[in-house]
């Protein structure tokens, strides 16, 4: 049966050049194995899913071509279906029977939390790019987890600050009624008040919802200038669509607190034009991002989301750390990853903090009007670069026990 798993696993095994360097890397069983565990078919498969796997494979190929490591690298993947139990089970199985060294992506917080605990117990590394919630690097943090791309602090904070500065002082929240929605709302509301804005009220909608019109009417009745959407995925998309239908936008403006380029792509510019959002990566930002994204596009026929780009960056950084450390032992690799700044198309001078947070610059984007979009996937104006230290929770405020105060 083990053979069956091996056979069906998508393997990108790459042979390496003979080890010429004197200090050969001591890698357990000679192979560094990466497991991409993500939503391959569900709500989040567009923003991570098969694209996350492809990005990870690209990172491995590029690393082998460029760094010529003296160890083999393999990539396998599985669909966690957004279920914490499936993720924990799969991760445990991968560690026990497949000798997987690190797990990549992990979209949705519940799966990420489940896996990072198993990984820590087994002394393996979690490279989280897909999941959003801040507890990953706060209350629940551990020393074998890296949270790469974004979180529920960085996204709303950038957006809220910018929107308040533009004059959107009065806010009303439409919040998905579960832990994730609440934390998104709270983080945003704090920033709004701190920046001199005011929160007029909120409404909690069942998750998942399909009809948001009555919540939107409540938001309309509040007279707020800005309606903050503290939800994700289909809920956000439906809210945006229906806000337009009820003539709420453009009189009041919407702020998507957790939105990806794949959401904008699905909704179309007609419905999203003018919205502010924060992103960790935009494919059309500079020549470097364009070059990489075009390679990605050739393979996936879609432009990468920040999550997928983050998967590449995290994987590459991890492999580099193994080479530098000369071992794949989790603690040593983590130490190297923290010591080395991240410099690639995704991040400039990014750093992995003690709590596992990879701090890098974020971008405040505004969605283009249909008339401004010149070519496919030309969706954002980048309005502002938010320095990493402002974008993420400062270490001083971190609730992570690893942070010594």
């Amino acid at each position, binding site marked *: *049966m083990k053979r*069956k*798993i091996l056979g*069906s*696993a*998508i393997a990108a095994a790459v042979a390496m050049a003979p080890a010429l360097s004197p200090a050969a890397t001591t890698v357990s069983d000679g192979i560094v194995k990466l497991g991409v565990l993500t939503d*391959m*078919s569900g709500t989040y498969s567009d923003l991570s899913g098969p694209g996350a796997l492809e990005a990870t494979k690209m990172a491995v190929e590029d690393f082998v071509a460029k760094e010529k490591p003296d160890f083999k690298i393999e990539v396998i*993947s*599985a*669909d*966690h279906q957004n*279920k*914490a*139990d*499936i993720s*924990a*089970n*799969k991760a*445990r*199985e991968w560690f*026990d*029977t497949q000798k997987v060294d690190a797990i990549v992506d992990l979209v*949705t*917080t*519940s799966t990420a*939390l*489940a896996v990072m*605990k198993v990984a820590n117990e087994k002394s393996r590394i979690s490279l989280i790019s897909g999941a959003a*919630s801040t507890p990953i690097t706060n209350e*629940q943090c551990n020393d074998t987890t890296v949270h790469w791309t974004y979180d529920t602090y960085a996204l709303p904070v950038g957006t809220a600050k910018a929107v308040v500065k533009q004059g959107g002082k009065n806010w009303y929240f439409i919040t998905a*009624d*579960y*832990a*994730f929605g609440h934390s998104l709302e709270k983080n945003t509301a704090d920033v709004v008040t701190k920046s001199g804005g005011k929160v007029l009220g909120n409404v909690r909608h*069942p*998750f998942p919802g399909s009809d948001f019109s009555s919540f939107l009417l409540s938001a309309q009745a509040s007279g707020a200038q800005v309606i903050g959407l503290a939800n994700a995925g289909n809920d956000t998309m439906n809210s945006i669509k229906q806000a337009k239908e009820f003539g709420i936008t453009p009189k009041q403006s919407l702020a998507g607190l957790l939105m990806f380029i794949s959401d904008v792509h699905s909704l179309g510019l007609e419905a999203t034009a003018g919205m502010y959002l924060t992103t960790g990566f935009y494919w059309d930002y500079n020549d470097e991002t364009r070059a990489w994204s075009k390679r990605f596009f050739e393979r996936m026929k879609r432009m990468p989301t920040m999550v997928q780009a983050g998967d590449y960056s995290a994987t590459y950084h991890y492999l580099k750390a193994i080479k530098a450390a000369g071992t794949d032992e989790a603690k040593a690799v983590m130490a190297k990853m923290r010591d080395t700044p991240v410099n690639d198309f995704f991040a400039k001078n990014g750093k992995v903090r003690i709590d596992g947070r990879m701090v890098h610059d974020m971008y405040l984007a505004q969605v283009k009007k249909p008339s401004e979009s010149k070519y496919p996937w030309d969706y954002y104006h980048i309005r502002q670069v938010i320095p990493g230290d402002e974008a993420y929770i400062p270490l001083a405020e971190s609730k992570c026990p690893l942070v010594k105060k």
Partner: protein
Amino acid sequence: MNGKHIGWIVLLLLGLVAPFLVYPVLVMKILCFALFACAFNLLLGYTGLLSFGHAAFLGSAGYLCGYTVQGLGLSPELGLLAGTVGAAALGFMFGSLAIRRAGIYFAMITLALAQLVYFLALQFPFTGGEDGMQGIPRGHLFGLIDLSDTMNMYFFVLAVFLFGFWIIERAIDSPFGQVLKAIRENEPRAISLGYDVDRYKLLAFVLSAALAGLAGATKTLVFQLASLTDVHWHMSGEVVLMTLLGGVGTVFGPIVGATIVVSLQNYGAELGQWVTVLTGVIFVVCVLAFRRGVVGEVALLIKRSGIRP
């Protein structure tokens, strides 16, 4: 020695050998679901009641067990007890409402009630909502045996499973079970014979719910987490599939069905969305052409070939 004895011996041997051949955590998962499906079969197979809300018992027992062990810091056996009792109480509430109607109405009522439980699980603060309960400690059984060791845990799960399965088998063979079968076959007749049919149905429902709860609580200890997956209505559908595929109304059928379905989900994870389609296809094929299920068909084959077991 009859077929049932042979079945028991095979089951025991398989249970003892399996963890050395297959990944033990997977076997534990199979055992939990097998118990769940057997509990469900007590209702569908022997009483003729199709509950489409059994996930509510599996899931809420998981949460209760998790809360007892993690929140209150009590021992794992108390966690199992809390889960089982909680599920039984919930089963009493569901049952009292649902047995007023039969057939399809019964199915839909249980489905809708389970959906209510799902929303409550999403809202209650102690369940952790979408994130679920994570990192629940397995603890020490009776304060002695360390369950964080995989093999210790395995044999504990096996013991729980055999215990639950034994209760179900006893119930089926007892006079109580005979009355249930009578209700399944001809309810008016059972009434005219003077049986308080509603009380029997309710009792069967509560027993089924309690054992489903035992399965759910055990599952929580195995995976050290409780999540919304186990209260979602998809789970209620899955247990129907397991029972149907293995053989409705056969003693060992649900175990076979659970093994097939869990293995399919485990090894088919790479197939992604095709697993859903495949599950649907199995459902359709079972209903159209394979209503006896694996065990039912095998039993028929044996009977036809004239071999007396």
